């Protein structure tokens, strides 16, 4: 439904997520769209943005066209400020040095819980997915931004399996489980940008993307949507944002 635009859904997703970051932040990023978005923000508005990788990297500088195939490849360390052990970089989350955890998601629910482990019953799974990696640690210990493609099967009332915790069952349930810090801040999709309501901790739409109606959004979502009192409309990607993004991922490895 975005064909009428001069950008792909993935490009929109990347650009909108990049706008969620601010200069000086320390961002723990996954590869793919999170890394692209963080690098875009770094080059556009946030020269002082620091990117951390799970493989053990602080202050990565990604070279256009040389995106790493994973967060554990040597490309992630090129001209970094520091290389350290994987446990050490993950412990930075626990100590509290990380401002934003930035991940993609396969399946999310109304409370921002993410599933990357099982489709169907974990005991007899329809699909065994790769699992958490550092996702559970990031979501447990830092404030989170999640960027994902908006599909009904990906936006469900309850995830089949809570791999990376959002607000669990809403309200105080996250804190009561022992997760005292962090939590879902934003979910960015190609259709809208979501926040979480302060009381129930349930997902709510804070702005619709260009050309997306409430109805279209609801039709593509597996649970009844709440809309923020002052619903905004997302600014479309600027030419500058699009040009820079296309420089970073010329082969459209992640932005096709």
């Amino acid at each position, binding site marked *: 439904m975005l064909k009428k635009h001069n950008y792909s859904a993935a490009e929109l997703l990347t650009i909108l997520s990049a706008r969620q970051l601010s200069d000086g932040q320390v961002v723990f990023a996954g590869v793919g769209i999170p890394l692209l978005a963080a690098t875009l923000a770094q080059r556009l508005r946030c020269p002082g943005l620091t990117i951390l990788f799970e493989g053990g990297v602080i202050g990565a500088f990604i070279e256009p066209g040389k995106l790493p195939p994973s967060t554990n490849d040597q490309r992630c360390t090129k001209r970094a400020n520091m290389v350290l*052990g994987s446990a050490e970089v993950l412990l930075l989350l626990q100590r509290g040095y990380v401002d934003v955890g930035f991940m993609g998601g396969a399946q999310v629910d109304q409370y921002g819980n993410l599933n990357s482990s099982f489709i169907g019953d974990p005991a007899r799974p*329809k699909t065994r997915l790769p*699992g958490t*990696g550092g996702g559970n640690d990031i979501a447990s210990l830092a404030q989170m931004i999640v960027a994902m493609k908006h599909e009904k099967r990906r936006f469900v009332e309850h995830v089949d399996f809570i791999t990376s915790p959002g607000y669990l069952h809403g309200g105080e349930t996250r804190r009561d489980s022992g997760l005292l810090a962090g939590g879902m801040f934003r979910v960015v999709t190609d259709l809208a940008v979501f926040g979480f309501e302060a009381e129930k901790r349930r997902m709510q739409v804070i702005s619709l993307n260009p050309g997306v109606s409430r109805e279209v959004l609801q039709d593509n979502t597996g649970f009844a949507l709440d809309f923020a009192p002052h619903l905004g409309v997302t600014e479309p990607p600027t030419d500058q944002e699009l040009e820079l993004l296309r420089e970073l991922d010329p082969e459209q490895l992640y932005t096709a």
Partner: protein
Amino acid sequence: MAMAKGNDKSRAGTPQSYLELREDLLRRDRSLRDKVVSLEEATSFVRDGDSVGIGGSTMSRTPMGMVWALVRAGRKHLTCSRSIVSSDGDLLFASGICDHIVTSWFSQGILWGVSKVMRHHVETGKARFDEWSHMAMGMRFRAGAMGVPFMPIRSMLGSDVRKQRPEAKEIDCPFTGEKLLLVPALNPDVALIHVQRCDAYGNAQIDGLQFMDIDLAMAANKVILTTERIVSNDQIRRAPDQTKIPFFAVDAVVELPFGCAPHECYGVYEPMLRHMEYYVGLVNADPVKGMRDYMDRFVYGPKSWSEFLALIGIEELLEAARAGESIYDA
């Protein structure tokens, strides 16, 4: 029978008793001695049923040559643990030498979606994949390296990942009253680690990303090193703060150039992506026949590791090496 107890426990995810751990270590010959063996000889350090810790992460510094040799040696019922598992896990499962993998993430790589080989073995119940968070894996190796039964962490709480891991225990902190998760020490019977260089005694120097290899080496009850180059002890002693694993934690040393192929070795070569693409295409199209064809041609076929490298192709090796060294061109 302490070793047997040992691997039963590390397979079950319960920490060994301290006395058992100390006795296992006491039995090892930790003296300063030449430990160089051939790749084939090194396989004898791994016994059927062992709990095996694997160094590196995803496609980086994976001891692929050692895994390849263990498949050829036909080990049985291994339980393998690693921070993040890539195509090494496909080989371990499909070859039948391993029926249990403990890790935080298991697929060939982010570029290629979900491993059909992992799915085939796990979804049909042929093999077991225990999932821990990445930090939890690190803290399990660290507790093992420190000689304590557990480490306290603040992640996994509240998630279904934790619900599937009764091996971990929740406590209320005796100091703060806060909920904490205690993850049990993981002391593998044997660790497989690939490094850029070490001496004949096993003093190992690792460049760049270390992943969890130092904790893994100190935690394991035996360590097999494969290395791009064996260097003199004098070279090691000229840069002692580059040494990351001390010789007395090492039991065998194998010189194995391109020992991570088709994966990467930091600063030496990047992953051989053409071979990986070919591999993934083959096995994700048909996880059974595809793997059999791959193993027949690339694992059982070659007479030696060099023959395997030749099958990858000298051009791809050179390209990977050029890219690998470029990391220092900063």
